């Protein structure tokens, strides 16, 4: 189905099932421990061998020699695979560094061997017996030091052009009566999902089946075939349940490759999970940024010049963190520029983490906006509203499909009690605590990705949906079931959803908050096909047929839906594809975050007291799962604001705090009160579902809102994330 004209009324608009706060249909399996994750497929493979990955102990250099003798003779060991005996390996289109290193080592904890043994403990023990002699080389591990030599990256469809320039930025900035020129930094961050990367591989001749934890089945499928050098047809990859991803499982990783290589060498199914201390340096992370923001405005608060530059690092061939993207679209202003540069670093591969680009970009931009508002003596909400725009500021003939930022800001302000905020910092106390309020705009683009599905009807009237779409804890199973139920006119319990299998039609997958809108639109398209097949079979004109209550109706005729499949299953398969509506209209999601913090006047400890997000993101397909997405994202935003920091040892070149004891993310006690409001919005330009993404919007802007609240509480402006007490102490007011 080609979607190239705004959606008109369609069966989804009935909202009998879609739009209802249905419980997650996979929830009962997850809460009872019966959802089988990749490492627990005892049903499929009862007696696998265990693989344990050895990670490189240096950040850059070469393996001079690798001595496997003791490991090979250790109890239980079946096989050991290294680059020396793995045979020729390719590299996946989505990988920057090789997933099996050696003799060159590209980053710390890059996999250099997998030991396969009868038990996990034996494999782990033997891995410790491998002796590796390294030739260490000097590496580049410091982004600030690498800024000068940073290069202009290639433009890609995802990252956009490295440089943009509209009007005369420099002239307008120089002439502006009120201006800001500041530097902000964001640290490297880890996805820190609950389930580590894990895979189980089983060969059958030259064909391999891989159960894994992947957000993007089609990418993983193609990339494992390319890595192993076998045809895609010889690989089946399944990922029906995923214990969190946040972008860390978008790509094929070492667990899957090493499981496949280990299984081949051992001639037996092998499963491999990354031990937690390996996850942080072996896989990808959100790269650190150094950002410079310049804003010039008239005394009326109207922005006349806005410039945003960002530097990030990556391995050779890696892409930049696209932290300037939102600045091209969020605020008005005739003169504008953005620039991205990437420095070559020898740290692990930088790549997407929830809201790549916007999350770190808004961490900087929305502090800058708060600072500008203060310079102008304006309320930060009013400053944003004055600079709102209904058109793409770079291309004024290109309107936003929907943009209700101002409504989000105003509604949030009222609901949160913004009028009680004292604009002068450091004035409000509750005992020993200094209180402050902060806010930020939320912005994340709505991405359109082709997505397919197959929908089947059987003789019992059961609808089965099959698509390689994944559910990373987001609720995909549920909203896909809701979509199919709405389209086919059946209750939810008549729908079965099967996800995450490379044997199914290729979907959008889960990433970039594009999963929900695109995958349900693909299911919509497939259901349209199935409706046609049903109508034809029952002798209805498909245009007139209404599907409701398990039956098909047209005029005064009715027939049970199941009747259409009485003498054989019917199916519809299609995908949603997009025309040029995204060129004519800018499609983005908007919101506003409000935060109240308390800062201990003695210790400068920061504790969030309450949070509110107001979101305008098209039709909300399921308010319950959408709310869960947003509150999870808000929680992640608090982590980004106050604690998350992959700390680099700049001599040794690795993230030192590589476990969950030392890489801190919020615990329950950090998040006492969360509230989410969705504006009642539909966006017919986005898709037939009239929905947009929401899972990342909830993160975008949160950290800046926290930082702005800390400023309001204490008068201390921190531009270097995370905002920790040591950065406040020196400027905190002296206590009596």
């Amino acid at each position, binding site marked *: 189905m080609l979607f190239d004209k705004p959606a008109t009324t369609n069966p989804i608009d009935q909202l009998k099932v879609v739009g209802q706060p249905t419980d997650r249909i996979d929830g009962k399996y997850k809460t009872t421990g019966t959802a089988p994750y990749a490492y627990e497929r005892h049903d499929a493979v009862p007696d696998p061998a265990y693989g344990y990955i050895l990670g490189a102990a240096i950040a850059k250099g070469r393996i001079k020699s690798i001595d496997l003798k003791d490991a090979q003779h250790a109890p239980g060991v079946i096989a050991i695979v290294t680059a020396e005996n793995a045979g020729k390996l390719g590299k996946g289109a989505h990988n920057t560094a090789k997933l099996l290193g050696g003799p060159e080592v590209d980053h710390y904890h890059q996999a250099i061997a997998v030991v396969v043994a009868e038990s996990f403990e034996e494999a782990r*023990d033997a891995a410790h017996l491998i002796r590796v002699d390294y030739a260490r080389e000097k590496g580049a591990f410091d982004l600030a030091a690498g800024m000068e030599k940073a290069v202009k990256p290639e433009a890609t469809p995802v990252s956009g052009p490295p440089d943009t320039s509209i009007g005369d930025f420099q002239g307008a900035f120089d002439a502006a009566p009120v201006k800001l020129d500041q530097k902000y930094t964001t640290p490297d961050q880890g996805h820190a999902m609950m389930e580590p990367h894990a895979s189980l591989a089983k060969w059958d001749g030259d064909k391999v089946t891989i159960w894994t934890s992947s957000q993007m089945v089609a990418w993983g499928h193609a990339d494992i075939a390319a890595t192993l050098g076998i045809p895609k047809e010889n690989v089946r990859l399944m990922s029906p349940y995923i214990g969190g991803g946040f972008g860390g499982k978008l790509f094929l990783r070492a667990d899957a490759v090493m499981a496949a290589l280990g299984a081949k060498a051992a001639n037996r199914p092998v499963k491999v999970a990354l031990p937690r201390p390996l996850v942080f340096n072996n896989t990808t992370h959100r790269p650190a940024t150094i950002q410079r923001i310049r804003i010039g405005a008239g005394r009326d608060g109207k922005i006349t010049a806005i410039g945003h530059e960002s530097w990030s690092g990556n391995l050779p061939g890696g892409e930049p963190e696209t932290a300037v993207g939102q600045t091209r679209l969020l605020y008005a202003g005739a003169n504008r520029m953005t620039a991205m540069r990437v420095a070559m670093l020898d740290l692990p591969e930088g790549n997407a983490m929830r809201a790549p680009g916007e999350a770190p970009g808004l961490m900087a931009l929305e502090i800058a906006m708060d600072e500008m508002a203060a310079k102008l003596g304006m309320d930060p909400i009013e400053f944003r509203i004055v600079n709102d725009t209904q058109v793409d500021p770079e291309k004024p003939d290109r309107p936003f499909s929907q943009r209700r930022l101002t409504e989000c800001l105003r509604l949030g302000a009222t609901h949160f009690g913004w009028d009680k905020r004292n604009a002068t910092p450091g004035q409000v106390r509750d005992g020993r605590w200094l209180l402050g309020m902060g806010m930020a705009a939320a912005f994340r683009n709505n991405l359109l990705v082709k997505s397919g599905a197959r929908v089947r009807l059987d003789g019992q009237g059961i609808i089965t949906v099959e698509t390689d779409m994944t559910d990373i804890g987001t609720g995909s199973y549920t909203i896909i079931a809701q979509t199919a139920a709405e389209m086919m006119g059946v209750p939810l319990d008549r729908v079965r959803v099967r996800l995450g299998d490379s044997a199914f039609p290729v979907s959008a997958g889960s990433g970039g908050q594009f999963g929900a809108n695109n995958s349900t639109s693909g299911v919509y398209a497939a259901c349209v096909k199935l409706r046609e097949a049903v109508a034809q079979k029952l002798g209805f004109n498909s245009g007139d047929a209404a599907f409701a209550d398990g039956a098909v109706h047209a005029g005064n005729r009715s027939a049970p839906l199941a009747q259409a499949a009485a003498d054989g299953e019917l199916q519809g398969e299609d995908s949603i594809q997009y025309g040029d509506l995204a060129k004519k209209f800018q499609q983005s999601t908007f919101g506003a975050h409000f935060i109240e913090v308390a800062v201990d006047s003695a210790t*400068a400890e920061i504790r969030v007291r309450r949070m509110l997000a107001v979101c305008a993101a098209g039709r909300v397909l399921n308010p319950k799962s959408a709310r869960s997405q947003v509150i999870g994202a808000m929680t992640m935003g608090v982590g980004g604001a106050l604690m998350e920091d992959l700390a680099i040892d700049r*001599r040794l070149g690795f993230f030192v705090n*590589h*476990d969950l*004891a030392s890489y801190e993310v*919020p615990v329950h*006690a950090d998040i006492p009160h969360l509230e989410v409001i969705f504006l009642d919005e539909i966006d017919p330009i986005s898709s037939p579902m009239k929905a947009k993404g929401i899972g990342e919007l909830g993160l975008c802007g949160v950290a800046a809102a926290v930082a702005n609240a800390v400023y309001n509480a204490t008068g201390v402006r921190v531009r270097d994330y995370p905002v920790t007490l040591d950065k406040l102490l020196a400027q905190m007011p002296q*206590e009596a």
Partner: protein
Amino acid sequence: MKAFTYERARTPAEAASAAARIPGAKFIAGGTNLLDLMKLQIETPTHLIDVNGLALDKVEPTAEGGLRIGALVRNTDLAANRRVRRDYGLLTRALVAGASPQLRNKATTAGNLLQRTRCPYFYDTAQPCNKRMPGSGCAALGGLSRQHAVVGASEACIAVHPSDMAVAMRALDAMVETVNLDGKKRHIPIADFHRLPGDTPHIETNLAKGELITGVTLPKPVGGMHIYHKVRDRASYAFALVSVAAIIQKDGTGRVALGGVAPKPWRVEAAEEQMSKGAKAVTVELLAGAHPTQANAFKLPLVERTLGAVMAEARA
């Protein structure tokens, strides 16, 4: 994890004797720290002596009016004990500030005293660490050191002791009760129990080979206001950047011990004579000779400010 043998000890003396006799033997009780370290091959015992059956799980009054805490009393039970809550509130407050409920349900009193540092280089077997591998060097010196010691450390090691409980016990003048392989008892003042790293950071306590902790004795209660103030980046389940354990009397005199700043619970009795002069005067003596890194120099003002808040709370 290396293969190991395992036995259940029947008496403390038998446990001590086995530990002294068998090379590479270790006691195991709650295992909340030891098992993690074994999985990472930071600890590689060849033999585990399970002491959980030794009936050292009682909290009893002593003839001197104090309290004897069995080595196996779980952190949760100790924190909830009525006598502890009434007379040694500092201890309850320190205990509940540590770890998580699940860990406190397993962790024992003796195990808490013996827990190893959380220095991230100690935890990464690919990195040098004098505590883990004597003579290999200290990667934290010149590396990541925000959490590390500012006082009492050495050129060989700047790791901190992670316990909250032990800091309270230091302020309470606890005595560690042990038994050796001959069944002989010994009482070690908590001040002398942990060692400073010097050139031998891998030797963390003054326990002799095989010597088993059987309990901790608290002297008669001293009254006063008991405050444990733990400072950390997140609200729970994090190790202290700095913690202050204080017992402050109505006249302003009192005791102060610090966590998060040193390789052992840190107390300088002479500093307590400055209590009437305020937090700054006390801190100057407490942290005399401090040698912070650039990344943890903030702990010095943080101690002073936290102590100031504690003293203000006691006055209020």
